[in-house]
């Protein structure tokens, strides 16, 4: 709720600012873009910036599918970005010819979700795995085994998210089942694993994770790298498990929806956010990793102070599942919680 409030307050601030030359409507994850940078952009270019926030990729996709959303910039995750390109609901704005493209780290250019890199410029990436309360659990955390097949003190003290996406992905990593598998037998194995884990699970919830973990109500929670980092910085005894099977990855990118009313301002904003200096400031604000080149000695979350953001295990990015594969995921989840 706080996030909505902040976003609304922010939107209101800009809504009441003096008559500006142009407008820019951004639709992004709640509190994902630095308000200071938005204000700077707004002042420098005399553009009135409105920010709305969404809380799931599905919400964003639905809104863009409906057409004429009025947004100039959106920030989908990689697997939804692919769908948007395939469905033709985002603009080819020649991103690969922009200066911003030169500022993307080489290893993050031209990924499978946008091979030509004409539709998007990345803004942040991160991982999901399990986070433990180190006051309560002193055991090993180098494998998903301790999370999905808990023994001893973790029994009954485990929490998962309330929706299947990343949780099923992690279970697939552990079992060696490929993401978006359409193989019934493989997905049955995923279900069996989660069913066997269920008696040890206290709660399936995506709300209130920080306090549940900090208070010791649960000892291990499925969570995001950046959130875990922020909790640790505010004094919670938490640690992101570096599981040898890998972590589930996501990467959010700026895209321009088809028919965006302020196309030029959108490109200007993406260029603005992608300069070395601003990308660094944005990374410090968001507490996630940046796929952009940044000024190393201005980065607050370094390898030493924020190991969460520099995993030494492989990152596997969530894929765009076919309807058949998605049905298997939904079926596993419904049978688990039936």
């Amino acid at each position: 709720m706080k996030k909505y409030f902040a976003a609304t307050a922010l939107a209101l601030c800009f809504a009441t600012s003096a008559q500006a030359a142009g407008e820019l409507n951004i639709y992004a994850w709640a509190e994902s873009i630095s308000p200071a940078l938005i204000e700077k952009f707004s002042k420098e270019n005399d553009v009135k910036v409105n920010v709305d926030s969404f809380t799931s990729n599905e919400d964003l996709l639905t809104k863009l599918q409906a057409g004429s959303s009025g947004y100039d910039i959106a920030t989908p995750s990689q697997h939804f970005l692919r769908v948007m390109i395939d469905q033709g609901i985002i603009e080819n704005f020649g991103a690969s010819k922009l200066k911003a493209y030169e500022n993307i780290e080489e290893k993050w250019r031209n990924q499978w979700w946008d091979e030509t890199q004409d539709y998007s410029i990345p803004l942040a990436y991160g991982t999901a795995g399990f986070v433990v309360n180190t006051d309560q659990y002193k055991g090993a955390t180098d494998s998903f085994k301790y999370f999905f097949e808990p023994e001893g003190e973790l029994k009954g003290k485990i929490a998962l998210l309330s929706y299947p996406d990343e949780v099923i992905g992690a279970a697939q990593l552990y079992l060696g089942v490929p993401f978006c598998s359409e193989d019934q037998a493989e997905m049955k194995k995923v279900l069996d694993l989660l069913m066997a884990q269920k008696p040890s699970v206290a709660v399936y919830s995506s709300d209130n994770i920080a306090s549940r973990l900090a208070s010791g109500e649960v000892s291990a929670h499925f969570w995001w790298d950046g959130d875990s980092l922020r909790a640790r910085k505010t004094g919670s005894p938490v640690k992101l498990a570096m599981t040898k099977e890998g972590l589930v990855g996501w990467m959010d990118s700026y895209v321009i929806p088809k028919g965006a009313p302020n196309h030029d301002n959108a490109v200007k904003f993406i260029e603005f956010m992608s300069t070395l200096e601003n990308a660094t400031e944005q990374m410090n604000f968001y507490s996630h990793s940046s796929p952009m080149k940044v000024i190393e000695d201005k980065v607050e979350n370094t390898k030493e102070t924020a190991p969460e953001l520099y995993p030494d295990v492989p990152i596997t990015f969530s894929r765009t599942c076919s309807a058949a594969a998605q049905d298997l995921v939904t079926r596993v989840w419904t049978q688990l919680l039936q």
Partner: protein
Amino acid sequence: MTDSALHAPAGLERAPRARFWHDLSFWGLLPSRLLMGFALILPIFIIAAVSVATRGAYGGFTWDFNLAGYSQILFNEGWTGELEFTPQYLLIIGRTFLLAGATTLICLLFAVPVAYFISRQPASRKAVLVYLVTLPFWVSMILRVYAWMIILGKDGTLPSLLEQLGFPAGMSFMFNDGATLTAMVYTAMPLMVLPVFASIEKLDGTLIEASHDLYGDRWVTLRRVILPLTAPGLVAGAILVFVPALGAVLEPTLMGGGKQMMMGSLIQLQFGGGRNWPFGAAIAMTLMALVMLFLIATALRAARREVRP
């Protein structure tokens, strides 16, 4: 009988009938009619239409007639690849009805004595008490549920209190059906107390005295006099509590720990990550149909009671 009454229905003969747009009440009621039409009736038709549409691969739907959404409630492809009877959705539907029913019953049990007590107070105190009953509505529902999490959760108010009394430390009452039910009863209680209070307040005290004069004991008086006379309030309260309880998402997720799905979260999953809108719409229509049956049954029973001499 007078002449004019014989000529009924009079409306047909009233000549010449004014065109309806000359009628002030037409314009007066127009805003509410439009609001009802666009905000209540139209969305239901849209949901009904989506429930028989064909799903899109990435959410959404296409306008091709398809009953897959409904057949999926009962039959699905099993893990062996064959179409088989799947009881899981019926289980979820049944559990939801059980939870809503239990909430309604517990609310009734608590609300009747409370309403009776309030109705027997002097007028000034009565107003204050009714105001106090509505007080929780001033706070957002999610905050009320969070308050219960603080009371029942680890190191919460209740576990700490029990610890003081010598019970073992570290107890938690969260994440089970009891916790869900507690929060649901709490959030729904004012909805039950108010209509019950309204009908009990109108209860004529002399009728109770009359019952006692006719050698009716307390039980008989309650059963034969008080309950029949306050039934409309009880039924109204039960409907107000039962119907929203069917769609509850917040309490089962936050208090119950989301370990067992309810219909609300099932529908949410289908429209969200499940990307199967027609199925989600079909479940919603099924829920609506079941509620409708429940309401019709209640209305019929109430009607029969009125006819009875």
